[in-house]
């Protein structure tokens, strides 16, 4: 059952990265594709109805982690205290920027919130990437299962490299979303940006993979086959984008992101918080899980709820889709 719980949390976090990933990516590429105030507003409107629901995947995954693996939740959140609070502040700034921008008709007001939106989106992706890098790298767990990661330690070269890779990947993800969802000059610029970002992502992917092999060695298990999926998705992405198949490009980008997360999850499994060597182990799904009764009821209510969300989300949200024409 712990394994199902691990898969469930992995699934919810993957949904979060796929969905909020595109709206974060849109935020991070806005200065590159949107030149005028109207275009910036358009790119924000393209994610307007969706971003909040997307972000709920993070809140829900946090709640599920709390219920299913309380020890891992407690240890990681308090251990990364400052980093987490900074993430919270950035999430708040970003939410305020998107929600309040439209409520006051002033050019300066818009410019201010555009800058906040861009900065917070970019920094959030970077921090998420750094956090993932640290999970793969291992954290300095103490004997009680708690740790205190100071900020300088979290910014180790490997983690920063994963962070930069995350920025490029989600920028590409956001760009494919913008191409799919909007039309106009900004969408054209986004279209031209795809192959250029693609090259950056490819180079960083190879670099991060090499660094990961250097960090963790190579196990020669099925996990090592996942990169084939990633590479296929990445190739399909470029192919679809050049062929102007917008939905396919976004789908390929989603598959690429999901394959990376699958590999990360498979790498740290069965740990939720792998310890930094020389300490062996870490907090695993088996010692972080509560009693079978609690696990069972949390699994049932969460899975039923997630299925319901997936059903009404897929019924309702596509009705909100369709091209948004962004003119100045």
């Amino acid at each position, binding site marked *: 059952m712990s394994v199902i719980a691990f898969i469930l949390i992995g699934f919810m976090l993957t949904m979060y990265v796929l969905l909020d990933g595109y709206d974060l990516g849109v935020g991070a590429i806005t200065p590159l594709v949107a030149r005028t105030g109207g275009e910036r507003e358009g790119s924000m409107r393209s994610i*307007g109805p969706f971003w909040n629901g997307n972000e709920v995947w993070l809140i*829900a995954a946090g709640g599920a982690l*709390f219920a*299913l693996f309380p020890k891992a939740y407690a240890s990681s959140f308090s251990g990364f205290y400052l980093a987490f609070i900074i993430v919270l502040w950035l999430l708040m700034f970003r939410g305020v920027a998107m929600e309040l921008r439209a409520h006051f008709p002033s050019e300066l007001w818009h410019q201010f919130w555009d800058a906040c939106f861009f900065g917070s989106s970019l920094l959030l992706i970077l921090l998420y990437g750094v956090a993932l890098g640290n999970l793969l790298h291992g954290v300095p767990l103490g004997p009680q299962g708690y740790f205190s990661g100071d900020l300088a330690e979290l910014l180790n070269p490997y983690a920063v490299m994963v962070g930069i890779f995350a920025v490029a990947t989600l920028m590409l993800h956001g760009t494919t979303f913008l191409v799919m969802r909007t039309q106009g000059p900004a969408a054209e610029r986004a279209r031209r940006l795809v192959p250029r970002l693609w090259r950056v992502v490819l180079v960083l992917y190879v670099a991060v993979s090499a660094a990961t092999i250097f960090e963790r060695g190579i196990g020669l298990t099925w996990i090592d086959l996942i990169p084939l999926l990633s590479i296929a998705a990445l190739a399909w992405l470029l192919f679809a984008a050049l062929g102007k198949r917008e939905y396919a490009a976004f789908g390929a980008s989603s598959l690429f992101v999901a394959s990376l997360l699958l590999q990360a999850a498979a790498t740290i499994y069965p740990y939720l918080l792998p310890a930094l060597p020389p300490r062996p182990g870490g907090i695993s799904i088996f010692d972080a899980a509560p009693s079978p009764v609690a696990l069972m009821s949390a699994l049932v209510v969460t899975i039923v709820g997630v299925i319901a969300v997936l059903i009404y989300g897929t019924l309702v949200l596509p009705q909100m889709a369709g091209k948004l024409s962004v003119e100045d």
Partner: protein
Amino acid sequence: MDVVIADRLQFAFTIMFHYLFPITTMGLAPFVALYTIEGIRGDADAAKAAAFWTKIFAINFAIGVVTGIPMEFQFGTNWAAFSAASGAVIGQPLAMEGVYAFFLESIFLGVLLYGKGRVAPQLLGASAVLVWLGSWLSGFFIVATDAWMQHPVGYAITPSGVIELTSLAAVLLSPFAWWQFLHVLCGALVAGGFVVAGIGAYYVLSKRELALARRFVDAGVIVAFIFSILVIFPTGDRNGDDVTKYQPIKLAAMEGLFRSTKDAPLAIIGMPDSHDHDLIDPIYVPDILSFLAYGNFNANVKGLNAYADTLEPPVELTYYAYHVMVGLGTIFAAIAMLAAFYLWRKRLFEEPALLWALMLGMPFPYIASEAGWIVTEVGRQPWIIYGLMRTSAGVSPTVASGEAIFTLIGFAGMYFLLGVLFLYLVLREIALGPSAVAEHAAA
């Protein structure tokens, strides 16, 4: 500073600021839904009202969402020992809030705000109702979490000291939780009623938007009247019974009762002094406290002296918060009753004094709700889980007070900015008025 104090200050500050917004969300959501549906059915005035209140609702919701995100994560950041010990229980209602309430609210609010012209009108109406449902569900799950910390049920403690869930149904169906939730919900509906009536009264008094304004006053007064009674009886009364039964020391602090007393009087006012164990300059109503607590004018009510000092909550804060809640509750119930009476006699709009009272009374339900939460949370100290875990044992072992103070200051600065922005944007919409807002929304 002691790290426990720093963590508590941060939680208290962030939750109290945050809670201002869910009050409005829960209280306004039914109005938004009703106006939206009436508007779709062809009532042009209701459509204007829907555009106006949806706009206010959206600004309020945005601040509520961004200030709500830190709440769930603060359990882990600042209260790691508490989370590790009790996550198996309280993580469940919190996870359910995310999965069952937040998705509903955020997805359908997206449809409501952006869907006009894209989706069928029926879906817009359904979205407004689902946002309403989501906001109330969210309130329920949060109150159920708190209620468990006030009165734990459905759990067992393992030999290693971890609290295990034995029955999720017991946690979610606990009568303690339900009465607490209904009380909270009635408080929010009083606030919603007062906001709608108060803003309506403002327009009537400024002689603007008269047709809509009267509609707001009518609807707001009726809701405020009904729920200002329900918030006192039965829900407030039943919460009082639960406190008497399960947390008698909180009752003693609320009432400023330092010594156990037979025929205990009720102190209407008075200044408690926990140093000298005395209530200074009280005005008493004889025997009433005994009656309220036990239904018997001669019953013995235990005072603070009956308990060990280490179990005593901060008396002054609990006492004043309780008296502020009850005092304001009495005042707003009186205003709402008077306004409802004049509304029934069809003379409300000839009584400017009453319209002024409705307008100026808008903050009262908010202050009363916040004060009520202070009674609940400060009054249960020194426990974080009543009778099971002390607050001082719940903090994160690796987070120093310096860190918590830094982040508290950061939150304070950020929330000050958010508060200013919120007031500015909402006051601006109110100054524009429903007609202009609706016209702008249609454009």
